[in-house]
């Protein structure tokens, strides 16, 4: 009977569409996105070539800015770039060989310790490692 096959046809097609509507997102989900997760575990802060001695670079580290520096002596160190006074972003001063906050003249030494101006606390230290030609910064 034609009506019976119509109902069956309808049932089959509609259930098929529902199944497709379930499997399409699942299959898309399984394929990882193009930009692999920028995990805050390891962020490429800079290339070793671009960070010269006595210079620094501010880069995004998760939800906050961070700064990686190369001391005049050649050591690579990384800190949170959030000034501990009123949360402005700090920068490297090659003339002072210090880390400096422009907002109220806060000074930090190259170990992140607050040595002048209003900042009440040192900058949070981060771990910097060199992998090949990249400087990787991670927490802790």
């Amino acid at each position: 009977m034609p009506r019976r096959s119509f109902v069956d046809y309808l049932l089959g097609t509609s259930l098929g569409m529902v199944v497709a509507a379930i499997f399409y997102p699942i299959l898309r989900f399984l394929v990882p996105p193009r930009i692999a997760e920028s995990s805050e575990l390891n962020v490429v802060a800079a290339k070793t070539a671009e960070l010269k001695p006595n210079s620094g670079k501010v880069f995004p580290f998760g939800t906050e800015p961070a700064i990686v520096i190369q001391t005049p002596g050649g050591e690579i160190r990384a800190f949170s770039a959030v000034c501990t006074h009123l949360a402005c972003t700090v920068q490297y001063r090659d003339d002072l060989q210090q880390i400096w906050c422009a907002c109220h003249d806060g000074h930090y030494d190259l170990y992140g310790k607050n040595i002048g101006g209003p900042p009440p606390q040192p900058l949070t230290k981060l771990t910097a490692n060199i992998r090949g030609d990249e400087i990787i910064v991670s927490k802790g």
Partner: protein
Amino acid sequence: MTGKLLTTSLGAISALALFAATGRAQPAPAAAAKVDQCVACHSELEGRLGDPVKALQQKNDVHGQHGFSCANCHGGDPSQGSGKAAMDPAKGFVAVPKRQDIPRLCGKCHSDPAFMKQFDPAERTDQESEYSTSVHGKRLKQGDQKVAVCTSCHGFHGVKAVKNSTAPVYALHVAETCGSCHANVGYMQPYGIPTDQLAKWQSSVHGEAMLKKQDLSAPTCNDCHGNHGATPPSVASVANVCGTCHVRQAELFQKSPHAKPFQALGNGACVQCHSNHEIHHPSDEMLGVGKQSVCVECHFEGTSSFKAAAAMSGQISDLAAQIRRAGEILQEASNDGMEVSRPQFDLREAGNKLINARVVVHSFAPGQVEAAVKPGLEVAGKAHQAGLVALSDFQFRRKGLAVSLLFIAIAVAAIFLKLRQIERRQSSA
């Protein structure tokens, strides 16, 4: 009559004795094996005569802590049990030191580096000499009995260390302490200077930072005026004073076209636009040619400087507006449930650039301001774009939902029809 004569002569003799005793009459603080008779008697007394002892014996009295006692300042002989012998002017006793003598009395110890470094090697010992350069010190020399001396701010019995948070000279309390005279209209009447500084400072951004946010690095009276050498900064040095914290603004200002003219006109640099005590958080409206602008106080329409002011104001407002726009759209996307925490973080950088641009305004050079604003505009633009993408993604989700719900509705209807068909067959069978 006789009593008065007696007291006066006693006073005069003790003053002389005190001057004589201004030689190195250093007390030995650790001579505590003997009983201090001053303390022994006066601790039994009430009111004015007993309170000083109680104050001295407080845990936080810095003199009492280090073994100093009555005789170290008042002179006399603490080993004597009888009042007369103890409070002997011959032994240097002074009941109430004269106001003019107080700096020298305190300076007896506090200006002696060799002595002070026993207690704190880093302690400064130039307070007395600084004081003599201050307005207070100069007026005191001329005989003004109302000006502040050491005891006015530091107290006399019960002196707390500066770093003690309950001390009247602790950073948080300095303004109040200065204000106890300077805000007292009646007291200050003979001097003819304003008495509204305290109120103005309290309403200022610096006052708020210190009083509301407890930011000890905020400037209070002594940070701009000096504490022992208290003097208002001269017109020429205002920018230097503000520039001790606001370094960049001061540097830019000194190189700007305003520096020389302001000095020539005797305008106090920063104070001209920002005021001295009643410094409020600057707004973008202060810049430019609008009603609330400070520029139009001097610059008239049609001049190139007027145009420059308008240009700079336009650049700053433009960036602020772009940031606001991006922030709004991202907030809208976030309210829709879209994940935009990354673009919101990136927008922060634009905020930083805006703060920087507002500092660069102090160069009063539109070219520099434009250069400062440009990177901020780029970032804000990107964030705005991300917001648009998020919103369109949300629309995509809603459309996708509508489609899925349609499929589901059709499937449910199909099942319903199938059931009806089956059950018809079952009931007829």
